[in-house]
C-alpha cells in the first residue's frame, strides 16, 4: 500500500529496497512510516521554476545550506537556478529516501 501511494516520491531503483525494508520491519514502525512527511517532486519543481532564484526550492526539501548559497549569489548567477530546474526532482527523491532510511 505504502509503495503504491508513494512510488512517485522515490527513484525507481530505490523502490525494491524500500519494499524489502518495509517487509523486514516490525509492526511498531508502521505509525512512524505513515507519519513521515515526504515531499512531492512535482511541487518542488513548480517552486523551483518560480522562486528557485531565491533558493526556496532547496529550503523546502531541507537543503538549507545550499538554499542560503543560492540566495546569497543571485541564484548562483542565474546558472544554478536553471540547473536546479532539472536537478530538483532527483534531489527531492533522494531527500525522501534519506528520511525513510532514518526510520527503517
Amino acid at each position: 500500500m505504502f509503495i503504491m501511494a508513494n512510488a512517485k516520491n522515490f527513484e525507481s531503483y530505490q523502490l525494491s529496497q524500500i519494499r524489502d525494508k518495509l517487509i523486514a520491519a516490525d509492526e511498531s514502525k508502521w505509525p512512524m512510516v505513515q507519519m513521515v512527511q515526504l515531499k512531492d517532486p512535482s511541487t518542488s519543481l513548480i517552486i523551483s521554476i518560480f522562486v528557485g532564484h531565491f533558493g526556496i526550492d532547496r529550503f523546502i526539501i531541507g537543503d538549507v545550506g545550499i538554499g542560503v548559497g543560492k540566495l546569497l549569489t543571485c541564484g548562483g548567477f542565474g546558472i544554478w537556478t536553471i540547473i536546479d530546474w532539472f536537478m530538483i526532482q532527483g534531489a527531492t527523491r533522494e531527500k525522501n529516501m534519506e528520511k525513510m532510511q532514518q526510520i527503517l
Partner: protein
Amino acid sequence: MIRNNLYLLLSGACLLGYSWIALNYLDPAFSDNKYFNGCLIKAITGIPCPSCGTTRSVLALSRGEILNSVMLNPFGLIVLLILLATPVWILVDLLRKKETLAQCYRYIETLLLCPGVAIPVIAIVLCNWIWNIYKGL
C-alpha cells in the same frame, strides 16, 4: 550530505566566488553590460533581487569602505566572511582529519529550520529586498 561532497562543493563555490570577484576587481565595468550582469531576475525584469549589489559591496569592503559596502548591500559582509573563512576552515579540517566545518554546517541547517530563527531571517531578507528596490541597485 557526506563530508567530502560538502567540502568539494564549498571549495568549488569559493573558487567561483573568488574568480567572479577577481574579474570584477580587474574590470569594474565587467558586470555592467546589459547582456549578463550576474542576476537573472535583474536581467529579465529590471528589478534587483535580494542579493543584488553583493559584488559591489565585497569590492567596497576590499577597499576598506565598510560604511559604503553596508549601504550597498549588507549581504556583502556575510559573503566576504564566508569566502575568507571557508578555505582556511577546510584546510585546517583536512590537516587535522576532523569534520568541524561539516558539523557546523549541519548545526546551522537545523538552526535555520527552527521557526523562531527562520521567520526573523526571512523578514530580514525581505526588508533587504525592499531596500534594494528602493535604492534601485
